[in-house]
């Protein structure tokens, strides 16, 4: 089937190609175009004419050139070997492409996503004669020190096992199991399976999401928490910190596996991950971060159609590991580039544009994507999740544009990055007035187990948010009359907000100690700040001038605790608590 052309090119405009005399193809089939066999996909059919999007540069492609069909839709190869790899948007391994064409990515290069050479250590988990259903684990493979790969019965297969491979070393395309289906067919299964990327993988049922995705970033965990299986958006103008935030979450969040999609962004940012992640140690497993990471890099200089595909290939890999019972976090940087790829292709197809040139189906596509996030019971009966964190790059930094607006309807966390905070180098520049999390109440129980009554997350969070809100209101007055005019009770609010902002919410990704805080440290820090605030109330009540409170030496300790007290020396907070009481008691006694 590969060698009989199924049509002829009739028109070429960049990544969009039309064909005539097309037959025997289906919508969304993968095709190969021209003598160089450029990879493409059928995105429109009308009689014997087809419209294709081509994932590679079409320079030199001529009308009249043959088109071949692969007979199947764009599908991901699934199996051991994905973790630690870096792929392009259509899942070609970039290392193999580098071996083939060097520094610059050439055209028409084909390389399988999974190595056909590596021998994997397979241990069977089923017996001959056993009945199997979709999602059941056939056997396991240590994919990395960190990830046990669970080879599953594919979603569309069930029956009786007629043979299963003994424990030993196998290549991904060797048979490891045979199943006789109720229809009497014999299905041969290998560790390698395929799944069409634009289709979501089935699950047994969706479960409520009530476990936080702990990120180690205080403004996220303590103010706008994310859940495992949740969906979050990080909108922000250029330079406000979307990518660093995504990197921070990829590094420090307590997911089992990370799928990081660089969608239409910088090459150097992917290189940075490639260089850094193998060196960084995951605090949850003490193994290099790379051992739980899959990278998809479709940088801005790569063809735009593959950018469109990268979001789907990424989330398919995430779902596949979810189905093994893992908690997967997917970062997509940036979903706006994906939306713009849709717009660019739609423009070339001469479709009727809706808002700002985006196609009318933009909202549907965004909804479908974020819908693939969730905490689920898998077909195999275990619990797994896909958390999706999408960066959004609004044109002109204006959140009223279509991608930000539509996205905000489909997500639970909205971390709005703020240009002004970023320009003061106040990071993460998450604006606490415009941001929100719909997951706060769901994670309160989890935090109660960590902090108990003494370090009551829910109460402390509420008070923190309250201080920040009141500060925001007071700032409106300050803008008109200055701070000096306010009574001391109000100055105390402004003062506490400043401490919260600078000593707690602000967190440098580049500070060795501060880059990541364990939940217990976050609670202790909040507790110290609020304790100081409450005792400040005692001071103000006694009409002691507030500047005396502000000049206490302990304040400097509070301002510096985030980078002074490491995650494993939390007892040092006891001394801080004591110092606050001593100094304030002394002040009151004066």
């Amino acid at each position, binding site marked *: 089937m590969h060698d009989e052309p199924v049509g002829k090119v009739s028109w070429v405009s960049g990544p969009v190609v039309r064909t005539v005399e097309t037959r025997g193809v289906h919508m969304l089939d993968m095709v190969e175009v021209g003598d160089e066999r450029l990879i493409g996909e059928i995105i429109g059919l009308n009689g014997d004419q087809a419209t294709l999007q081509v994932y590679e540069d079409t320079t030199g492609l001529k009308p009249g050139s043959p088109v071949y069909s692969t007979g199947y839709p764009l599908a991901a190869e699934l199996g051991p070997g994905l973790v630690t790899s870096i792929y392009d948007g259509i899942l070609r391994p970039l290392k193999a492409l580098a071996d083939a064409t060097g520094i610059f990515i050439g055209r028409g290069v084909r390389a399988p996503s999974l190595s056909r050479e590596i021998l994997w250590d397979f241990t069977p988990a089923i017996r001959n004669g056993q009945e199997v259903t979709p999602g059941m684990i056939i056997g396991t493979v240590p994919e990395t020190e960190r990830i046990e790969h669970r080879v599953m019965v594919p979603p569309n297969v069930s029956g009786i096992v007629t043979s299963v491979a003994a424990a030993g070393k196998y290549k991904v395309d060797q048979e490891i199991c045979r199943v006789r289906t109720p229809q009497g067919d014999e299905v041969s299964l290998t560790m390698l399976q395929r799944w069409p990327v634009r289709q979501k993988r089935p699950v047994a049922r969706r479960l409520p999401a009530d476990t936080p995705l702990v990120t180690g970033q205080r403004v996220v965990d303590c103010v706008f928490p994310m859940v495992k299986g949740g969906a979050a958006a990080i909108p922000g*103008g250029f330079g406000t910190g979307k990518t660093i935030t995504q990197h921070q979450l990829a590094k420090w969040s307590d997911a089992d596996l990370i799928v990081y999609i660089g969608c239409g962004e910088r090459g*150097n940012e992917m290189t940075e991950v490639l260089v850094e992640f193998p060196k960084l140690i995951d605090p949850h497993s003490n193994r290099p971060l790379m051992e739980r990471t899959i990278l998809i890099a479709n940088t*801005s200089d790569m063809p735009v159609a593959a950018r469109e595909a990268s979001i789907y290939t990424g989330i398919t890999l995430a779902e596949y590991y979810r189905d093994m019972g893992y908690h997967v976090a997917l970062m997509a940087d940036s979903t706006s580039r994906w939306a713009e790829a849709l717009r660019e292709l739609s423009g070339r197809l001469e479709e009727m544009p809706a808002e700002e040139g985006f196609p009318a189906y933009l909202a549907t596509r965004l909804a479908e994507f974020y819908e693939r996030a969730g905490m689920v019971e898998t077909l195999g009966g275990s619990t797994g999740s896909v958390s999706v964190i999408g960066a959004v790059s609004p044109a002109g930094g204006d959140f009223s544009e279509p991608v930000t607006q539509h996205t905000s309807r489909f997500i639970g966390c909205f971390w709005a990055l703020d240009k002004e905070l970023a320009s003061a180098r106040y990071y993460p520049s998450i604006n606490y007035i415009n941001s929100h999390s719909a997951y706060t109440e769901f994670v309160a129980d989890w935090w109660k187990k960590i902090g108990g009554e003494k370090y009551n997350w829910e109460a402390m969070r509420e008070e923190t948010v309250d201080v920040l809100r009141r500060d925001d209101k007071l700032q409106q007055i300050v803008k008109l009359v200055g701070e000096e005019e306010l009574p001391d009770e109000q100055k105390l609010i402004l003062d506490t907000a400043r401490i919260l902002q600078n000593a707690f919410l602000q967190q440098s990704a580049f500070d060795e100690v501060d880059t990541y805080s364990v939940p217990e440290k976050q609670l202790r820090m909040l507790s110290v700040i609020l304790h100081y605030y409450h005792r400040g109330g005692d001071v103000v009540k006694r009409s002691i001038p507030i500047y005396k409170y502000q000049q206490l030496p302990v304040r400097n300790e509070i301002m510096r605790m985030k980078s002074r007290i490491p995650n494993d020396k939390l007892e040092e907070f006891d001394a801080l608590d004591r110092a606050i009481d001593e100094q304030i008691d002394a002040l009151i006694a004066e």
Partner: protein
Amino acid sequence: MATEIGKEYVGVQRIVGPLVMIEGIDGVGYDEMVEIVSDDGKLKHGRVLEVGTKAAVVQVFEHTTGLSIGATKMKFLARPVRIPVSEEMLGRTFNALAEPIDGGPPPIPKDLRPVSGAAINPTLRHHPSDFIQTGISAIDAMSTLVRGQKLPVFSASGLEHDRVIAQIIRQAKIIGKQEPFAVVFGAMGLKHDIADFYRKSFEESGAGNNVATFLTLADDPSIERIITPRSALTLAEYLAFDVGMHVLVVLTDMTNYCEALREVATAKGEVPSRKGYPAYLYSDLAALYERAGQVEGRTGSITQLPLLTMPNEDITHPIPDLTGYITEGQIVLSKALQGAGIYPPINVLPSLSRLMNDGIGEGRTREDHRNVSSQLYAAYARVKRVEVLAAVIGEEELSEIDKQYLTFGQHFEKEFIQQAPDEDRSIEETLNLGWKLLKHLPVSELTRVKEEQIAKYLPKD
């Protein structure tokens, strides 16, 4: 070029602005180069934008005036637009298609390279981290330039960006290293006097023989500008990755480039996105800006310093906006600062270097660099807020601490940002100056620097 074989046709169907529609062709490929001969025998160049079984749309780089429906000859060259490259091109001036326009003979090419380039495989990029000292405090301390970075200058009409860029080119160095370097200068729609200014500045600094210039002047046909940056980057890639030189590419003015793109899109009748610019503007710019960096196994590098003018000084305009989304930061110039007599008029708050973090610190600049810089940013941002407040309530009504911030701000602008166009400050001087200015604030405000750094660097008296 006369020896090229290709398909030749006489007569075209339609001419719209820079586009020519031709019918009755056969075997023509997408993005192919075209030679066009007008009625009076003038040779022009173009490339295929769209091609069907019998028809093609060709974009002509030169003016389409002089082309007629009946007599225009078109020759399809069966290859993409490409240019000759060689080291000999340094010291010379070319048009957009790398034909010499300085009166000298064409350099002997070492190779012919397609100008559109190809994506660099991210697994073979080498993450840039070599600090380039520009001698300009506002850049070195606050938005540090790193070798292999793409760092544009966002300017506005009437601002002294050319002086700033010339100063950067003159002073830029890697401390302690002497390595082969070159400048590739891609000028799009440049005015004659500005072109002269740059030429003189290169000559005076003695760098003239290391500069290759691709020049399209303001009165040259606008569509040529679409090729200029591509030719410049193609030569830069050859010099960096084949010859092993450290290449600084200056592209000015990217706004003119984008306007040429818009002109073509409009002539084609494409659905525009923002402000009439085509939906593919982001991808198109990315294909240029991403042609910067360092790669594994090659010694050379490409550092890009593009310049663009923000229409109405509006940073949210699609050109600066999309650029900022692609490049590794931006240096923003401001009319307000220039109006206050400050040179270089660099507005540090919206400026950013995304690669700074990897290029600074112990062993590169100094261990306190990251913290001082962050502290200066925080303080200066507060200055700007206090200034607004002062305008409302009056300076006298400000709190003591706010007044101290105002004083800091004045000194910061006058002593730190401001410097002479020939003043080349070392990074040590720059950082020490930063500390000296922080002296205007109470120590309790300096929470972004470490206590041991305060002990070591904050002047004692």
